[in-house]
């Protein structure tokens, strides 16, 4: 039988990052019922909450924490007002900090490249960022027809636009320990 005496370390880490207390969850399952992406997750949102309560760190290598699109349906409907989407964010942050190998490696890769481009320019240069992502995830040729159509309609700016305050963004990233 599973030892139900919880190890609070993970719950405390989550609370430290986003202020949410996963121990309040009583497993009604409303988050999973509301989640539009639960069909694609290996561990359902309510199970994520339970694992976080019990301190089961395997949750950090679930596909769920990366598949979650932050739509906040769970958060809007939780009867205990637990902001589950913030818990998901916190779990991602912990997984990155602890170098947990992600089950959906392309999604954290996407976030990392996004933040780097924004750090360089202060704004997102969509074309450059997408090209780098496509190269590094080796998905260069999917979406190419869509990309060309968008380019021809002037929806992908060929030149980056920069903010004069990109240095501030870089400093914010440095001070907050962004990887």
């Amino acid at each position, binding site marked *: 039988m599973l030892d139900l005496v919880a190890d609070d370390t993970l719950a405390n880490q989550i609370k430290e990052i986003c202020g949410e207390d996963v121990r309040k969850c009583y497993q009604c399952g409303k988050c999973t019922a509301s989640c539009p992406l639960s069909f694609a997750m290996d561990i359902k949102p309510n199970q994520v909450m339970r694992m976080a309560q019990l301190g089961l760190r395997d949750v950090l290598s679930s596909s769920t924490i990366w598949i979650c699109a932050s739509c906040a349906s769970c958060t809007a409907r939780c009867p205990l007002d637990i902001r589950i989407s913030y818990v998901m964010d916190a779990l991602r942050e912990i997984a990155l900090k602890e170098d947990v190998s992600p089950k959906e490696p392309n999604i954290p890769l996407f*976030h990392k490249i996004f933040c780097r481009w*924004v750090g360089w320019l202060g704004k*997102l240069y969509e074309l450059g960022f997408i090209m780098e992502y496509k190269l590094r995830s080796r998905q260069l040729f999917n979406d190419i027809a869509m990309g060309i159509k968008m380019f021809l309609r002037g929806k992908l*700016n060929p030149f980056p636009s920069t903010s004069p305050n990109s240095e501030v*963004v870089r400093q914010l990233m440095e001070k907050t320990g962004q990887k």
Partner: protein
Amino acid sequence: MKVAYFPGCSLHSTGIEFDISVREVCKALEIDLEEIEGWVCCGATSAHATNHLLSLAMPAYSLALAERMDVQDVVAPCAACFNRLKHAVVLSQQNEETYNKIKELLPIPWENKLRVRNLLDIFSNMLEEISSKVTKPLSDIKLACYYGCLLLRPPHICQFDNPENPQTMDELMKACGAQVVDWAFKTECCGANLTIPRPDLVVELTYRILKSAKTAGADAIVTACPFCHLNLDARQADIHKTKGELFNIPILYFTQILGIALGVPPKKLGLTRHLVDPFLLPALRRR
């Protein structure tokens, strides 16, 4: 009315027709948009997915820049930007420790004294004026109003409309003379940025939304978010490929419909930039 304008990155690129139509509509309604000088990316979605404090400090910095202007309101038409700016404001109001942490990070003072609003919020408070300015009502078109996630959720942050059955866009479209359909997917998620790393999931989610709108009898879907627009518009070709169903439903920004109704020439509203051609609709072709 003068307001600080936060366009965000998408409105200068993939969502350029949103920016174009926002500016036209605001001109017609005498709302003076003054772009925040030196604004930076709000960080959506990657900053909050990886770094809580950074995700609040980035929008707070742009808000601090806006405090130097002579305004009370910051307007962010993009739902994602609106959501992140509101997060910085509300979480700082609710928690002094959070506010102090952000303040310490910023190189300039931030009093957190401005109100962050989206355009639907502003327009829904001037419906009478808008109705009186409608010169070309769109009575021959049926619209599905799609709100998506980030204008509404989480409700403790957005503090806008009814998160389960919102009505502001429906009321605005009715003021433009259009018919609106009652449908079940107006607040469902489109998958947002998963469109790049997991397009298969976005195809699944957008398929359901398009199918629901079509079943309800909509001629077009109206959105308020560049992510939603991109996914619903650009993924229809992939849906055709994988699901065998060709929707060809035009996806429009609410500001484009409002612009047409206010008599702005359609060519000034960026209608030719969509992947699914809005002029497929006889109601728009005639204008």
